[in-house]
């Protein structure tokens, strides 16, 4: 019974992997870029496909959220644009850009501001002309943008899912004397693993409790994001932990926790390291730099791993369109399934690594040293 059910689920999954990729990515490509330019629906096979563009579009952020179930549903949700302009707050639907990303459609809000959108970044229409070379870092040419984008929605979905799962997990603990029931039986070993193998060895038995909520939140957020990112259809399939801004925020939290909890010894080792004084001009800057390189490594490691996985997956799909033949699809499909299993592994490994390194960095900052003892503190991954 169960086996049959699993087999069916697996078949559906394989079908979705095989078909949703080509369809959704190609159509995304249309709606985002080509369709607006050519005004033609066209068959994927006859078009020149820019794989880089597809990858960039999938892995990046956007004001549109594509809800798609192969053969059944194909719908674009236009998320709100929230801007902080010179004249105050301005909120309107991204539908008003009509899918334009080339700066051709000018949107005027109720305060009289005029905006254009170029590559998902909104600029003042007065300061940018179509075809200009602009980037999101030209802050003088654009309003501050707090739009509730696709990835912002994805964060909410992932956290919502996590909250839901944990809500049912907590329900399994009605009677603390009995063994956990239901989801709790599945979640508890993972939570205990974080506690016993990540938090306690790195933070020490006396101090670990304070950091447990943070470590658990980070671990499960990354894990859920990674796993949800592997499901190739809405409302899943986001490239959340492969977005450097998301990992940046996570790394900043670890950095803040490390810095505000650092004890006397931690700061002493940075500003007065145990080396001859003549070396201090070299050592102190290195130590100060290492404060920042640790979270920086955290940020880049997670981002690069997940982004690479998504890029490979989409590239494999794009391969069919680049070569222009349907006979490549079994090969692509096989490799996508193969990659999915690897990504499944990576999902757990990266969540684990981020968490254990966070615990390690915080642990190094709070641990009490015996005098005269020297510690090696580099862990390479």
């Amino acid at each position: 019974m169960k086996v049959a059910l699993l087999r069916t689920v697996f078949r559906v999954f394989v079908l979705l992997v095989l078909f949703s990729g080509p369809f959704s990515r190609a159509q995304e490509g249309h709606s985002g870029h080509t369709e607006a330019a050519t005004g033609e629906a066209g068959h994927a096979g006859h078009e020149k496909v820019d794989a880089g563009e597809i990858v960039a579009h999938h892995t990046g952020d956007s004001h549109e959220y594509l809800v798609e179930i192969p053969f059944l549903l194909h719908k674009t949700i236009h998320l709100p644009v929230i801007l902080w302009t010179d004249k105050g707050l301005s909120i309107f639907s991204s539908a008003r850009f009509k899918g334009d990303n080339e700066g051709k459609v000018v949107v005027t809000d109720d305060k009289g501001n005029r905006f254009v959108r170029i590559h998902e970044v909104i600029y003042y229409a007065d300061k940018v002309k179509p075809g200009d070379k602009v980037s999101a870092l030209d802050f003088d040419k654009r309003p501050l943008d707090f739009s509730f984008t696709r990835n912002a929605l994805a964060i909410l979905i992932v956290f919502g899912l996590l909250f839901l799962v944990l809500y049912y997990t907590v329900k399994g603990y009605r009677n603390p004397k009995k063994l956990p029931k239901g989801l709790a039986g599945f979640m508890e070993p993972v939570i205990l693993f974080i506690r016993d193998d990540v938090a306690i060895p790195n933070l020490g038995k006396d101090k670990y409790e304070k950091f447990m909520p943070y470590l658990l939140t980070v671990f499960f957020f990354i894990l859920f994001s990674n796993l949800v990112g592997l499901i190739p259809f809405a409302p899943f399939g986001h490239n959340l932990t492969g977005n450097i801004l998301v990992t940046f925020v996570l790394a900043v939290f670890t950095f803040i926790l490390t810095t505000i909890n650092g004890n006397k010894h931690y700061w002493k080792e940075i500003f007065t390291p145990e080396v001859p004084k003549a070396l201090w001009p070299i050592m102190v800057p290195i130590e100060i730099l290492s404060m920042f390189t640790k979270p920086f490594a955290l940020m880049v490691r997670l981002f690069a791993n997940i982004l690479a996985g998504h890029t490979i997956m989409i590239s494999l799909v794009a391969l069919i369109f680049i070569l222009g033949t349907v006979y490549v699809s079994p090969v692509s499909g096989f490799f996508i399934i193969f990659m999915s299993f690897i990504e499944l592994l990576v999902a757990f490994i990266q969540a684990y690594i981020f968490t254990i390194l966070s615990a390690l960095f915080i642990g190094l900052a709070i641990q009490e040293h015996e005098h005269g003892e020297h510690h090696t503190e580099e862990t390479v991954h």
Partner: protein
Amino acid sequence: MNLTAPESLIFWMTLFFLIFFFLLTKFAWKPILKAVKERERNIEAAVDEAERVKQEMAKLKADNEKLLQEARAQRDQILKEARELKEQMLQEARAEAEKQRAEELAKTKQVIEAERQAALKDIHNHVAKLTVEMAEKVLRDQLADKAKQEELIRKNLSELKLN
């Protein structure tokens, strides 16, 4: 990679992370960790209790053994004492009996001696009497005949002459 405006996602990520960090801490992590800790404490307490009970049992068993040993020793002691008492009583009884018998024997001997003496005396008297009677009868018989009296006197006289 399209990042749109970086401040957008940083803002939402920070916001959602903080909101859900506090929500999850309050409604999930704290209760779960507390429940787990409580259960672990319960298990630990149960194990300790079991250990304690086991030790108590061992102690009880040892106590029992000791008591048994003591009882056994006491029994042996009592038995030994009883045996000694018996022996002593027997000895005493025997001695008493011996003494009594000896006394009895002595008394009996005395009585027998007395009886013997009495009997001897009796016999002596009797014999004396008989002898006298005999002598009387014989004398009377002999002296009844005149000739015989004269012979006797003559014989006795002759004997006297010899002397």
